[in-house]
């Protein structure tokens, strides 16, 4: 990740392409997201995570929560579940479409104002 600026200057936003995520193992993706979020950054994933990775992200986030330091994450994606549209064969083979823009930030710095199937509106504050 690029050099982190002083948080007093503003809020850093990392937009991570699907191509960059493709080359990473699940735990590497989760580590990259949580390292960014714990530095106070907003992480935007072009293609999101798979359901299994989302499950592990919740689990790892929980192990890192620490009073007065890190309260956890706020995560938002468009609410439409694409797994329901996958064919049975695709689901059996684990080929599910997970391409959904995902926004992740520190729970104490990001607040979702509005969400529907086509729009996520969030308020981001400094630390």
């Amino acid at each position, binding site marked *: 990740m690029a050099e982190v600026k002083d948080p007093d200057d503003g809020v850093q936003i990392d937009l991570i392409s699907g191509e960059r995520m493709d080359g990473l193992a699940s735990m590497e993706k989760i580590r990259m997201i949580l390292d960014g979020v714990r530095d106070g950054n907003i992480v935007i994933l072009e293609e999101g995570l798979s*359901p299994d990775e*989302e*499950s592990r992200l919740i689990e790892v986030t929980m192990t890192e*929560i620490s009073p007065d330091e890190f309260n956890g994450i706020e*995560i*938002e994606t468009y609410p439409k579940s694409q*797994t329901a549209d996958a064919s049975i064969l695709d689901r*059996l083979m684990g080929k599910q479409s997970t391409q959904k823009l995902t926004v992740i930030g520190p729970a104490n710095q990001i607040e979702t104002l509005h969400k529907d199937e086509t729009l996520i509106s969030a308020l981001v504050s400094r630390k």
Partner: protein
Amino acid sequence: MGLLTNLKDSISRAASTLFSEEDPKRIGIYGPPNAGKTTLANRIARDWTGDAVGPESHVPHETRRARRKENVEIERDGKKVTIDIVDTPGVTTKVDYTEFLEHDMEKDDAVRRSREATEGVAEAMHWLREDVDGVIYVLDSATDPFTQVNTMLIGIIESQDLPVLILANKIDLEESSVQRIRNAYPQHETIPLSALEGDNMDEVYDKIAEYFG
């Protein structure tokens, strides 16, 4: 390699379903904090075994460990369905101990509760990936069901091909809207109930037998 692993997992899951008909299925009760999961688990356990599963509270994260009630025999139409009920901590992506201070708790107790709550959520996610055969997803019908945690969890459950029954709890409350839940998750059947008052439990038991029997 990933493809082969996925195929192997699918075959072993199908095989375990075929060859373990005699074992009681482990049914996880999942949902966000304060949806009434433990109230439901206690209602089911008391109705069919006479015992409770765990303490209920209006303070979030009262359940901080997954609790299993084994061999709950539910009788429907002369047939017995035996399940293990796994009451799980409410799933969330954040836990702030200061929220517990609002419930007249000292800081030390609030910090301890938040630490136990985070361990409980991690445990619940692990059970969901590894150890449950079906899911009862409990939602508070008086609140907005369209949250990120609900969307993610339903997606995770669907990706595991687990049978899932959505229960719209708290229909005894004036603000309750079962239709809002049906609209949010139209791909699943939604059953209304009040676990606290015991309303519509007959239909809940019919559906448990149908989905998990």
